[in-house]
């Protein structure tokens, strides 16, 4: 099914290319493009003005920015800011932590919204579906401070629900929040809990474009639910899954400050200190825009590299973003 789709796509692209090569095709293509260009013009202006123009501000990564001289006038310092950042013995560990936490968030967290959407899709009572869907998306609106409080209610040693249960069953407790591996698990899991219902919305929208008659036909052929999901639902979701994955991977260096700051504690700081929390604690964040920009540029470059790689892979199966 999926491969057929790709084949069709390739064929139509080939035909398109053939058409554009002839003179007639060129005129026709121009005529077809004219209204599109007009449509796109305000968008182009928007992106140039609001996205590309401010990018010149990246020069302060190579300057010693101060308010008095402004972006242009501040003195150049070359790679001093980077030298300074990478000379700090903490920096490498912090970058590693940032990558690990966000990679886990992306890779482990990724399937959950898909699974949730599929499960919801299989619900036949519409009132149940509506309620479940609405409840599942609510955590998205809770501040991390609140979620942090809930995590404590569950996992603290003396009063946490899980430990109270553990003590009743086994007679001993476990310091979940103070062991690195269990902390990371809680970190990733709380992120999943907070966002899965929200992220599932996009897949629910994608599910609407799958032809219901496919399921009927499969049902006639005696395919069980499991087979139907594997052979109809998942392939139908694949373009959206790939799109989401590429978009998520671009933000891999961007671990939310609040989540880490609220959940971390001194014992797990070796795995829990990330770029943004470190900046906040050491005080680079406030006045020192040059360092922040230098770090930001570095994060962006990593993001770009990853997106180019992933998109390259996706292109091989005809599903790249560009």
């Amino acid at each position, binding site marked *: 099914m999926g491969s057929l789709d790709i084949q069709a796509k390739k064929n*139509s692209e080939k035909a*398109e290319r053939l058409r554009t090569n002839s003179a007639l095709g060129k005129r026709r293509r121009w005529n077809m*493009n004219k209204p*599109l260009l007009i*449509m*796109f013009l*305000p*968008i*182009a202006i928007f*992106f140039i003005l*609001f*996205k590309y*123009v*401010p990018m010149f*501000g*990246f020069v302060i990564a190579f300057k010693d*920015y101060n308010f008095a001289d402004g*972006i242009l006038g501040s003195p150049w310092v070359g790679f001093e800011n980077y030298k300074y950042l990478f000379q700090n013995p903490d920096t490498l560990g912090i970058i590693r932590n940032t990558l690990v936490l966000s990679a886990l968030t992306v890779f482990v967290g990724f399937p959950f919204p898909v699974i*949730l959407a599929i*499960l*919801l899709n*299989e*619900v036949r009572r519409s009132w*149940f579906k*509506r309620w*479940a*869907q*609405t*409840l599942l998306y*609510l*955590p998205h*609106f*809770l*501040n991390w*401070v609140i979620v*942090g409080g*809930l995590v404590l209610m569950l996992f603290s040693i003396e009063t946490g629900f899980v430990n109270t249960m553990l003590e009743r069953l086994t007679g001993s407790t476990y310091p979940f929040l103070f062991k690195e591996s269990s902390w990371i698990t809680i970190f990733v899991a709380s992120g999943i809990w907070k966002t899965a219902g929200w992220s599932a*919305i*996009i897949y629910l929208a994608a599910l*609407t*474009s*799958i032809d*219901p*008659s496919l399921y009927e036909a499969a*049902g006639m052929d005696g395919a069980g*639910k*499991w087979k139907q999901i594997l052979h109809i639902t998942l392939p139908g979701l694949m*373009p959206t899954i790939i*799109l989401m994955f590429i978009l998520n991977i*671009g933000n891999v260096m961007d671990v939310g400050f*609040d989540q880490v*700051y609220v959940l971390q504690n001194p014992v797990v700081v070796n795995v829990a200190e990330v770029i943004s929390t470190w900046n906040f604690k050491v005080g680079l964040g406030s006045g020192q*825009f040059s360092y922040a*920009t230098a770090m930001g*540029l570095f994060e*962006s470059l990593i*993001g*770009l590299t990853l997106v180019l790689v992933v998109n390259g892979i996706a292109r091989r199966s005809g599903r790249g*973003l*560009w």
Partner: protein
Amino acid sequence: MKSTSGEKVFYGVNYFILVLAALSCLLPIVHILALSLSGNEAITLGKVSLWPQDFTWTAYSKLIEDTNIVGAFRNSVVITLVGTGLNMAFTILAAYPLSRKHFYARRFLTLAIVFTMLFTAGLIPNYLLAKSLGLVGNYGALWLPGLVSVYNLLVLRSFFENIPEELEDAARIDGSGEWRIILQIVLPLSIPVIATIALFYGVAHWNSFFNVLIYINDPERFNLSVLVQNMIQSQSLMSELAMLDPDAFRKLAPESIRSAGIIVMILPMLLVYPFLQKYFVKGMLIGSVKG
């Protein structure tokens, strides 16, 4: 059709998982609701779990009497409705051309747009730009710089790409222009994704906090999110601030009022989503092709 026993097991497991997951999301909200309706002493002593103790409406009446919550709510609605309207119009205008295979420089433009998602300039350049365009101090600063979100744009584009070309070709033969194709074919067939993206934009506007603080100077124009987040956030950063500014410590909003704020903030979202869900109709696209 009769359900086989395998299907029965499948549905049973499915409901079981969903009920568990939904409960895990419901209980915290119930807890917050209970906090907002409880006396402060009971909260301090940790007595409140899922049912209010020393039941009282004080937190809500205080929110309404002492804070500008009504005005803030109105501001939130204005920011969200106008903002989402603008977002939708321009995102559709951007997504449609990019979804057309014959569009010039399609690949280049897509890459150029993804690039802006990865390389976002810092606060200062954005602020200076907004200032030079006269946006500081008005809601323009909240609407224009985020007019088109790359993320939503790409989602919309990928759904537009899925619309069978035969439909459009047929319309073109009938003499329809691109605008009519958008209005009469593309948009009606994309209602689920349009609803999704409108929800994404709307929620982002509803929650917008930092930009409001930075760009809007007049406290009368602050939104609900600023009002509520100020109460919650001040708590998490308080230990950092407390040494300098003990006053901040003394003036922390009590937990019941903070919880009431959260409930007021969430309630509209609880109402909006089920409303949008009715646009998630299955098989719309397919039906139109066959018909």
